[in-house]
């Protein structure tokens, strides 16, 4: 079982990303589970979402305290919250960053400039790049999912033209994501 924690900001779609991941997992013959850290989710406020992926039906339902993967949607967040908290020693960070993020020490890192991808594709809400689907593409790479499946899941979830654009954001990130240790 892989346990994943997403860090984002209220309004950025971290929960959506986690939910779509469940779809991707199921389409890939796996089981998935996604849940938000619920609270008063204020716009701009740091928020979290969680997901589990497993090859059999997942029955545990407690919070994820020691994730295998941490996904950081907003490059500013690591300054504000401890995104690495509880990350397993062999855990992985998937970061939205233009270059290797310096806040990670001693963990495997995948990074991709998701903000740029979003801006390029005009995925913007109130001046804000919407990076969640791009980050999902990057995560798919880390988890070894077929990006075609990810695109399909995104399009099912979002629908219409916006679904298409989000799907290509995911694909671009999938292709551009850089691994380093």
């Amino acid at each position, binding site marked *: 079982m892989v346990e994943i924690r997403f860090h984002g900001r209220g309004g950025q779609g971290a929960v959506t990303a986690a939910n779509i991941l469940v779809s991707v997992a199921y389409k890939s013959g796996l089981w998935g589970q996604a849940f938000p850290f619920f609270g*008063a989710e*204020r*716009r*701009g406020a740091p928020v979290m979402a969680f997901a589990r992926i497993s090859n059999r039906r997942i029955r545990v339902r407690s919070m994820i305290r020691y994730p295998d993967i941490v996904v950081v949607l907003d490059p500013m967040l690591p300054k504000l919250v401890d995104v690495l908290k509880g990350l397993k020693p062999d855990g992985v960070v998937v970061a939205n960053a233009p270059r290797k993020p310096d806040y990670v020490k001693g963990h495997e890192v995948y990074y991709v400039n998701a903000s740029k991808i979003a801006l390029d594709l005009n995925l913007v809400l*109130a001046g804000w790049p919407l990076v969640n689907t791009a980050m999902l593409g990057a995560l798919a790479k880390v988890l070894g999912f077929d990006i075609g499946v990810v695109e399909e899941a995104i399009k099912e979830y979002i629908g219409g033209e916006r679904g298409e654009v989000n799907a290509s954001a995911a694909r671009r990130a999938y292709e551009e994501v850089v691994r380093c240790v």
Partner: protein
Amino acid sequence: MPISIKDLPKEKLFLPGNASCPGCPEALGLKYLTMALGRKLMIVIPAGCTSIIQGLAPGGAFVFPTLNVPFASSDAVAAGLAAAKKILGEDAVVVAWGGDGGTADIGFATLSGAAERNDNVIHICVDNEAYMNTGIQRSSLTPFGAWTTTTWRGKRERKKELSLIMLMHKIPYVATASVGYPLDFIEKVRKAASIKGFKFIHLHAPCPVGWRFDPAKTVHVAKLAVETGMWILFEAENGKLRISPPSKPYADKSKRKPIKEYIRLQGRFRTLRDEDISILEKMVDDAWETILRLAER
């Protein structure tokens, strides 16, 4: 007596770092309330955004006694609290601070009961026109045509005329106010505090999250509501109704801005069709007509 911005107290009884969303109208209202009443303020809060805004225990953003209470109970709790303060001879102003839902829906019998008994309470309805704390569901005070998560094609019923209904309760003081006009609101709160019995103030509170507008525009939208005549500021002391100065010009229909100006700023009215806008316009005209009929001549 009109007050000026310079006279307002500087003491912060509503603390920064609270849990309101950026640009929150309830936060604005609470801040004004502390300015109006200072250390005499005691507040009773039914469930709603303000339950969250006050922040997490064991802390709190409110530097005044705050009693959180069940959704339908605020005015009754406040009535009991006011009775206790009277018996103990304490100098306190008990305010029940309810949202549109807590006031006009689930708590409406409680409100009406306290009004009829003339309990010594100020009820302030902070009206953001939907159940915001649970994620934007329609209330009886949601306006006609507005999208919410329980009215996907826009609400089909009109906004309940809450302040007129309260006026018909023949309580000593009824007023409307807006977060866009803080001095007017503060004056009204102070006046209410000076009167014994049940007082009702209906505070219009445009919410960027639920109405889908830029949080920087809270005050702007609030003012537009008044300038388009969609929200009418008035007060009635012992039934004598007077239009308040900010609204006075708009008794003349020709002075009102077109309501489209108000509507197009708000995502919640996205699906409004032209015929719906005419209906809304008609409602505005009707509301003015009734108010003017009831106003002192």
